[in-house]
Every structure is written in structure tokens, then in C-alpha cells.
């Protein structure tokens, strides 16, 4: 395996508060890498830095061999990094189906020039067909015509996942994919994520609090504490690490 995402000496501070301190982070091609840590450990900040939502103060980020440190989030998406948010971000006034249409059309826009701006009065058949495929794949059939803002929490998350898959990413970053879900929904979400990971051949980067989800998905586990990585490796090995038990797992 080769590293698809490599971060070296990652440093991020908000004002005088240093959230990430000289973090080295690797993500191998094809792995499902879960980052855990107590609240305030810097998980979300690490996520934001890697996805390009915020600028880093120091260090480099390489994706598939290319230095992406200076690129915006949108530019990183074009290179194959998709991401979801802790609270699902969708287009609330559009129908769920239109959300998907927008995602697919946005991926395709660069090949179309002016036709993209004036050319069609309806989405192209290929786009609609692709959206329908995604609906079936993610099990969104019942809610596809509903206004996205009225969907349940779990359905919003599934819709957001579908939108990210429409971008055909190589690496998908999921920020707490099961936050706020019931235990049965969580198990369902783990199955769904495993399924799309296999069928799309994705590398995954996740943050998560629920230990069942963590150990259900992770092929590699990293523990973040006060902006530093204190353990990283096979999930079982990390679970046995005494320092990890002390700062994080022990609390549960």
C-alpha cells in the first residue's frame, strides 16, 4: 500500500491557541482510517485542515503525490477528496433528488462550457439516470421527492453521502457520520459505509465518538489528544495501549 494522503508537521493555531502541533499523519490507499480523541482534541480541526476548509499555519499536505497545501477546498475536491460535515450540509429548499442533480452536474460542468449556463432546460438523461442509481444504492427511494430540509437527520446524512459519491472521490472524509443517530441507525450506517467503500474502492478518513462504529469500520486507528497524535496503528493494538486507555477509552 502507498500513502494517498500524507501530512507532515501540520500546525494550526486559532489566535494564540495552538490546536494542532507538528502533526504527522498518513492515510494509506484503500484503508478506513478513523481518528478518535476526546472533545477538543483537534479532530475537527485536523479534518478542516486536510479538506482545505481552513488554511494551515505550517507543514505540508500531499494528496496522491501532489502538494495540495496551498489549494482551496474546492480545488482539492476536484483532485478527488470528498467530505461530509458533522451536521449534514445539503440544499434545504431543493428536493432530495435535485440535490443529487446539482452534485452530478457540478462534477460534469467543466466539459460543457456555455451549454452549462444556457443549454438545458432540464437535466440531461444521463444525469437523471445517475441520480436514480445513487438513490437506489443509498436507499433514498422514499424521500427522494421531499424537500431536503424536511428530511430526518439520518436521511440528510445519507443524502450528503450520496452527493459526495456523485463527485467520484478517491478519498472520502466523513466527519462523525453517525452523530445523533439511534443505535439501530448506527449499525445500518456502518453497513452502508462499508458497502459504498467496497463498491467505490474508496479510501476513508473518519472521525467518530461511538466505539462500536469505530471498531466496526476502522482498519487503522489514530488517537488525537491536545493536538498531538498519541497512538496510531491496528485498532486492536491501539485499544490495548495504556496511554490511550488513560486519556480516552478509560472514560467509557
Amino acid at each position, binding site marked *: 500500500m502507498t500513502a494517498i494522503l500524507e501530512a507532515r508537521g501540520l500546525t494550526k493555531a486559532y489566535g494564540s491557541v495552538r490546536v494542532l502541533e507538528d502533526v504527522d499523519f498518513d492515510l494509506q490507499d484503500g484503508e478506513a482510517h478513523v481518528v478518535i480523541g476526546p472533545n477538543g482534541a483537534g479532530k475537527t480541526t485536523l479534518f478542516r485542515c486536510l479538506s482545505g476548509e481552513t488554511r494551515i499555519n505550517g507543514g505540508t499536505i500531499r494528496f496522491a503525490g501532489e502538494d495540495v497545501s496551498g489549494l482551496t477546498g*474546492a480545488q482539492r475536491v476536484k483532485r478527488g477528496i470528498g467530505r461530509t*460535515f458533522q451536521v449534514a450540509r445539503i440544499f434545504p429548499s431543493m428536493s432530495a433528488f435535485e440535490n443529487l442533480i446539482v452534485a452530478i452536474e457540478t462534477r460534469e460542468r467543466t466539459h460543457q462550457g456555455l451549454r452549462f449556463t444556457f443549454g438545458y432546460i432540464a437535466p440531461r438523461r444521463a444525469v437523471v439516470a445517475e441520480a436514480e442509481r445513487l438513490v437506489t444504492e443509498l436507499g433514498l427511494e422514499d424521500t427522494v421527492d421531499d424537500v431536503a430540509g424536511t428530511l430526518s437527520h439520518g436521511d440528510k446524512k445519507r443524502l450528503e453521502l450520496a452527493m459526495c459519491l456523485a463527485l467520484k472521490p478517491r478519498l472520502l472524509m466523513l466527519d462523525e457520520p453517525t452523530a445523533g443517530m439511534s443505535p439501530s441507525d448506527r449499525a445500518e450506517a456502518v453497513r452502508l459505509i462499508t458497502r459504498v467503500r467496497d463498491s467505490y474502492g474508496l479510501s476513508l478518513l473518519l472521525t467518530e465518538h461511538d466505539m462500536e462504529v469505530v471498531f466496526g469500520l476502522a482498519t487503522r486507528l489514530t488517537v488525537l489528544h491536545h493536538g498531538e497524535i498519541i497512538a496510531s496503528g491496528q485498532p486492536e493494538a491501539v485499544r490495548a495501549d495504556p496511554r490511550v486507555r488513560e486519556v480516552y477509552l478509560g472514560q467509557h
Partner: protein
Amino acid sequence: MIDYRARFRSNLAIAACGLAAFAVVPFVANSGLMFLAGLVAINIVFGMSWNLLFSGAGLLSFGHAMFFGGGAYAMALVSLHWPGLPFLLGLAIGAGAGALIALVFGVIALRRASGVYFAVLTLVFSELIHLVITKTTFLGRNDGLVGIPRPTIETGLFTLDLTSATAYYYFIVVAMACAAFALWCFQNSPAGRLIQAIRQDNLRTAFLGTSIFGWQLTAFVLSGALAAFCGAVMVPFTQIASPEIAYWTVSTQPILFTLLGGAGNFWGPAVGAILFGAIDYGTRAMHGLSEITVGTLLLLVVLLIPGGLLGFLQHRRQKKRRKPTEPAPKRTEAQP
């Protein structure tokens, strides 16, 4: 699933009815009323150009007069100083002037400000342009540019003589129909959907891999070009370009039309502009009554039916349809 083709057909039907109504005006009304109808037709598209920003891109402009006035003055200048220039090219220059103003302003303002600060910047910039016009001799200072001729269009096969007011009225109706059609196509294209998406959640659109700034600028330039096109078409009709058309009161017009008619609907500005024209006509003998009526009406609309007239009608229709079984849905701003 949304039936896009049915939506296109029903909008085309509405447009056809509207066009027919405008087409019979010269037969049934006197020249004063026809003149007003011509201005209303221009105002409809002017309102729509503003609503493209407001409901489409989620940008609030208080300075649309700068585009309208910019287009009008560009048109006036070319027809006075360059009489040999083909008329349609003059219109294109007018629209291009608006696009250029929007581009320059948009590059500066869209990067720096958002929300209310953006709105105030548009107002300030528009006032600046008004001030420049009133101080520039070349642009006629406070007197404006007068005696602008109505054109004849040489097509090679035949000559279209638009020098009479009636002929030019028909030209306005056709030009505005074309502009509205182009705008509809844009708003319902993938790009139009994307701009909507940016308004609803800009972070999500950024992480779909698009430049928010680029698309907002596109919408802004398009809106500016369209407003300027309206100004450019108006000038040969009124035969004068005066500084008032770049004044801030003109900027309030498309806002009034849109809020009266309903911002969530493509035809909202059209309904508002026609209503506004009717009030203007009904109160023409009593100076000041028009403003009072419009002001009161707007107050009522904003307080009682924030979705405007069309939003109100649509809401009522949905309520009626759903009454027997299910409760009324939450009101959304989904496009019709």
C-alpha cells in the same frame, strides 16, 4: 420527480398570454397608455434582473440604477455620436457597459463584503456613478442627453422602421420577451441550479468543487448586463437619458416590483411591475398619491403576505389541495 418539460411548457404558456396582452395594447389604448405599457415591459425585465440576484444568488443589490443608467447612457452616447452604427450593436454596447460595471464592482465587492455590507456598497457605488454623470459635461450634466433618435434596422433583406412610437413599442415587447426567455433558460440551467445551491449552502457547494466567487460574479455580471439592456432599450423610446435614471430611486423600483409580486416566483417581478404601472396610471392626476398607494400596499404585502402576491396565491392553492387529508406543508422557497 420534477417534470421539467411540463414546467417549461406552463411557463411558455404564461409568457404567451403576457405577450398577447402586450401586443393588443396599441389597438385598444391611446398613445399615453401605450407609452406606459412599454415602460412596464422594460420594468418587468429590470425587476427580473434584480431578482436573479436576490432570489437566485442571494445577493441584495441597492444599486441597480447604476446598471440601468449605465446602459441607457452608453446607448445615448453611441446613437448621438456614432449615428452610422447598427442599432442592435448599440444595444449590445449598452448591455456590455452594464456587464463591465458589474464586473469591476463585483470583483471588488464580492470579495470584500457580504449581506448588508454588500448592499450598502452597491448603493454607494451607484450614487458615485450618478454623481459622475451630473458633473460630466460630456454626459450632459443635470440636463442629460436629449434628442436621441429612434432607429431603423437594416437586415439586408428588408428594413425595419422603428421611428414611430408604436413600431418601437413592438420592438420593446419582442426584445424584453427575448431577454426574459434567456433569463429563464439561465435560471433553469445547471448553472442556475448551482447558483441557487450557493445561496442555500455555500460551504457545501465549495465542497462540490466549485468556486463560489466565480459563480456569484457570473450572476452579478449577467444581472448587470440585463439591467443595462433594459436601460439601453428604453432610451430611444423616451428619447432622453437624464441623470434621474441613475438615481437611487430607480434602484428601489425593481425591489418594489419583486416584493409586491413575490420574490420566490420567476413571474413575481412581472406581476409587481404591472401592478405598479396600473397604480401609477390610476393616480396620475393626483400628484403624490401614487407614492402613498404604493407605499401602503408594500407595507401590507410585507406585513401580511411576505411571499408577495404570487407567493400568497400559491400558498392558498396548496392549502386547498391538501386540506382534506394532510396538514399544510411548511412554506418553502422552492422555485415553482
